[in-house]
């Protein structure tokens, strides 16, 4: 992909990222951080791609370690965020 397209995606994503969380109450800081934390677990996709391309045992070993860690990050992150938010259920402001 050409550099200009990537730069555009990057800059626009920065603005969207700023915009979506700019007015969040302190009550939700923790779950929001935890949810964002889970989202960067999609590095799992990158880990799978490098595992797919691995040729030596070293590469494969490192890739598989990355897959384990990324899975923990992603799945654990979403589960723990859900547990935090479960506490808020049935509450109306």
């Amino acid at each position, binding site marked *: *992909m050409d*550099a200009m397209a990537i730069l555009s*995606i990057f800059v626009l*994503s*920065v603005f*969207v*990222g*700023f915009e*979506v*969380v700019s*007015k*969040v109450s*302190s*009550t*939700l*800081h*923790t*779950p*929001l*951080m935890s*949810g*964002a*934390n889970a*989202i*960067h*677990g*999609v*590095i*799992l*996709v*990158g880990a*799978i*791609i*490098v*595992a797919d*391309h691995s040729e030596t045992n070293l590469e*494969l070993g490192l*890739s598989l*370690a*990355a*897959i*384990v*860690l*990324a*899975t*923990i*990050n*992603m*799945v*654990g*992150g979403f589960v*723990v*965020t*859900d547990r*935090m*938010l479960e506490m*808020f259920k049935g*509450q*109306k*402001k």
Partner: protein
Amino acid sequence: MSRTLYDLIGLAAGIAFILALKGLSHPKSARRGNLIGAFGAGLATLVVFFYASPSVYGKAESSLPLNNLGWILGAIVVGLIIGVPAARRVQMTQMPQLVALFNGVGGGAAALVAIVEYLNLGSEATTAQVVFTVFTVIVGCVSFSGSIITFMKLQELMTTRPVVFPAGRFVIAATLASVIGVGGWVVSALGTTPLLVLAALSLLFGVLFVLPVGGADVPIVISLLNAFTGLTVAASGYVLDSVLLIIAGTLVGASGTILTRLMADAMGRSLFGTLFGAFTAKAQDSAGITEDRPVRSGSADDVAILLNYARRVVIVPGFGLAVAQAQHTVRELADLMISKGIDVAYGIHPVAGRMPGHMNVLLAEANVPYDQLVEMDEVNPTFGQTDVAIVIGANDVVNPAAKTTPGCPIYGMPILEVSNAANIIFLKRSMRPGFAGIENELLYDPKTMLLFGDAKSSLTKVVSALKAL
């Protein structure tokens, strides 16, 4: 699957992440937002198995089914076996450190991916690809080791106070300089040994970066490292030619940066001061003077009598409430007081507990009505008309030193002004100072009464004493 379809599904996952962050910003939509995010992540992961990756970082195009498919699926299962029970079983009080740990392993994963990329970068790799790969190794390692240290601080495996050693700032500066220097070397001359040196130095820098941060500021650092990890994911996306990773990583990086600032503001800290204050921090001289002064401790009956004749009571919960799992008991006490016609409110400090919003989550679990939770700015002016303020396992968030003692670690943090109430009751386990490690003058105030013991058993005694009246 065609490249177009693959990218379209990647775009859909990216949109899911935006909606997830948007949803997580509002109480009503938060849970749904999280589920949308999980859906997006699941979708993105699933699709990889149906698309033969193009040639990336010097590797030939792949074919379906994926190479090493069995190993890949096995590793995912291992991750699930470790991650899901950890997230399911963790106690509410330990959630902050689990989030820190999850962030750390994410950073570690990004660093490992970048190391594998680096091992394969051929002569046809562009300078930008090399730079982004090296960037990911550095920041991923910093995020990994930094998060492990925050985990150890929160788990109290090590001291929660700032760790400052002689010439610390020079060591940190020198380490950072060598990380940058070796990074440049690794970019200019591809080689495995320099890369390992770089990874080791980056890990060391992560440790040094977090060590001097005081306990109360740890959540801010976790949030910052979270943003760091996001950026590494974006950089990996560039090298691996994945639009999805670029979008997801950048979103987390940007929103994480804003969130870090919001958290710092909520705590009345400057972000710069939090991160670099430690470089100039001096050893605390808090010990000594105050230790032998008398305090007034009372019994559960004394507390019950005080409450029985109060018209307005404000409950100030803190980490001690979470540790004792006393949220249901405190609600019982509040309900009892309300039935006696006493005006009851909970004064919620934004960073009471170990993380912003910790108390809201805890009290929500006990079904405390939302309108009884009053935020700091609203509750502070009412302490003048409050007969009794009950501080349950909180310390730093009511410590007047934040206003009166320049130079102490919490100076400048807004506090709950319980000292304006007519009477103050502290439920404490011991005279030990709070997480920030600072003596609290309020404990020695003549209008303060201390009730020692575990918050839950103390509250249970107060409830039965109050019922008997």
